[in-house]
């Protein structure tokens, strides 16, 4: 039953551009994919190590600016840009993890919020580098250029959809690989009981730094993809709303599960759009709020754990 469901979902995901003819709907799906990468990334910290990063949009934004600046100002290849969009936020995540040292819970939240605040201010005020609020227009599209063949641009929505789908698959496999090993158990041990973890030889700081760096790198990848998709980067990428949306997706989807963030991302990207189509704008956000509260009220652990429980009982 569950295998069938997964196979059906994969089939739908793999063929979507063929039957989703409305470009706006396809755009919604692409955004769902970008958010799925972000939610998987946040889940690595929030769901497994139990630490809430409320500055996750910073890593997303640094990723977007990294590739945006390299490709616009230095005209480097977008692929190198994307690599930088992973490495630079990853390094920032590493630093945050080191700084966190013994800061946990509310203090970790404050650290990440302050970090995001700083980065956002830099993007607005360092005019020479970032163009400030004007942003960086003209980010080039991704292109596949094989020697001897004409370059194949990934600027169409259906092509970019597959790029994002691949990124979601990669992020998912990354999380899966970590979680199903002793590394994953060490992350969970931090969430469950860090003192006991230390007493059996698990170095909490080491694993928190690791999770923060990998999580930030994944969020950066999402930011890089977003930059090449919208072809524009502005301080808007640092909006707190992005972080809040990620948290909603992870928590409502099921934190600490692998499928939860993906399900949450699809659900909470498609839902507002469906509500927009079904109602007027006054009702859209209100209904969104009511539905979110309902989900958390009836499925406090999230959609995926609730479905699992429902199936086994």
């Amino acid at each position, binding site marked *: 039953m569950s295998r069938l469901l997964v196979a059906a979902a994969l089939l739908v995901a793999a063929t979507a551009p063929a039957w989703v003819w409305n470009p706006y709907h396809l755009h919604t799906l692409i955004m769902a994919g970008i958010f799925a990468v972000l939610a998987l990334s946040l889940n690595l910290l929030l769901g497994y190590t139990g630490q809430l990063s409320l500055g996750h949009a910073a890593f997303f934004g640094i990723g977007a600016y990294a590739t945006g600046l390299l490709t616009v100002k230095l005209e480097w290849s977008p692929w190198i840009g994307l690599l930088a969009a992973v490495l630079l936020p990853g390094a920032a995540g590493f630093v945050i993890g080191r700084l966190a040292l013994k800061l946990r819970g509310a203090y970790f939240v404050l650290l990440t919020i302050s970090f995001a605040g700083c980065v956002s201010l830099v993007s607005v005020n360092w005019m020479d580098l970032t163009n400030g609020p004007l942003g960086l227009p003209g980010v080039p599209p991704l292109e596949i250029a094989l020697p001897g063949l004409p370059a194949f641009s990934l600027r169409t929505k259906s092509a970019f959809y597959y790029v994002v789908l691949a990124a979601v698959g990669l992020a998912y496999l990354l999380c899966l690989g970590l979680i199903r*090993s*002793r590394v994953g158990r060490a992350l*969970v041990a931090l969430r*469950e009981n860090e*003192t*006991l*973890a*230390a*007493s*059996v030889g698990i170095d909490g700081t080491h694993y928190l730094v690791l999770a923060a760096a990998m999580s930030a790198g994944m969020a950066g990848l999402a930011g890089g993809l977003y930059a090449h998709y919208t072809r524009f980067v502005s301080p808007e990428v640092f909006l707190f709303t992005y972080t809040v949306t990620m948290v909603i997706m992870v928590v409502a989807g099921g934190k600490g599960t692998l499928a939860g963030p993906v399900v949450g991302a699809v659900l909470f990207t498609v839902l507002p759009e469906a509500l927009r189509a079904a109602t007027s704008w006054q009702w859209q956000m209100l209904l969104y709020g009511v539905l979110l509260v309902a989900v958390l009220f009836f499925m406090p652990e999230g959609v995926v754990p609730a479905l699992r429980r429902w199936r086994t009982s």
Partner: protein
Amino acid sequence: MTLEARDLSVRFGGVAALSGVSFAVAPGTVTSLIGPNGAGKTTAFNVITGFQQPTQGTVSHDGQAITGWRPHRIAARGLVRTFQKTSLFPGLTVRENVLTGLHLRGRVGVAAALLARARVRDEERRLGEEADGVIDFVGLGARRREAANGLSYGDQRLLELAVALAAGPRILLLDEPASGMTTSEKASVAALIARIRAQGVTVFLVEHDMRLVMGISDRVLVLNYGRLIADGDPASVQRDPEVIRAYLGSGAHAHA
């Protein structure tokens, strides 16, 4: 493999939890640390395992000074402790708890976890077998798949022991492993400690139950108000007038 504490002092503000305590735990023995509540027993454990820095003094293991090391490093050296208050990975199953305890027995790092899945599979199989062995050793075989926070109190204490054993201790420091247990549960814990020792693990025990302590210990150390007042075999410690005074003379009741 001797654990040695020399001149340990811990002060919290004006209160001296430990003052100038020195002792050694010989390899292969069961050594117990007893004393009235607040005597500094848990503080001594915290200092030895790196959870607390001593104000003064040193701890060494095998001649290597380990004072100031972080807890995970001390654990990696083979000094593994349990906690006075039940301490588990509550949301995980019995088996997952023990697998987490086996952390030091695994080698896979991030790169291998992501790229060398075959190695991970082999390691997971090996660790799984080891986990099952430890679970059977403490007698929780029937509870393998149950969540830790759903176990009975007695089983939770056994699981704590299993998690600590999984970490491969050379010296196992048990902080009141039998507190709150029924008489028959205490007897099985005593038997378990004897079996752990028979496997060559040195046991360092903090415990209030005198019958348990006197029954299984080779040596008994007595703390009172942060000072070591007696150190010897169980029979001589029981006769020691100062020990009797510490337990009875102050008007407090003996724990037994």
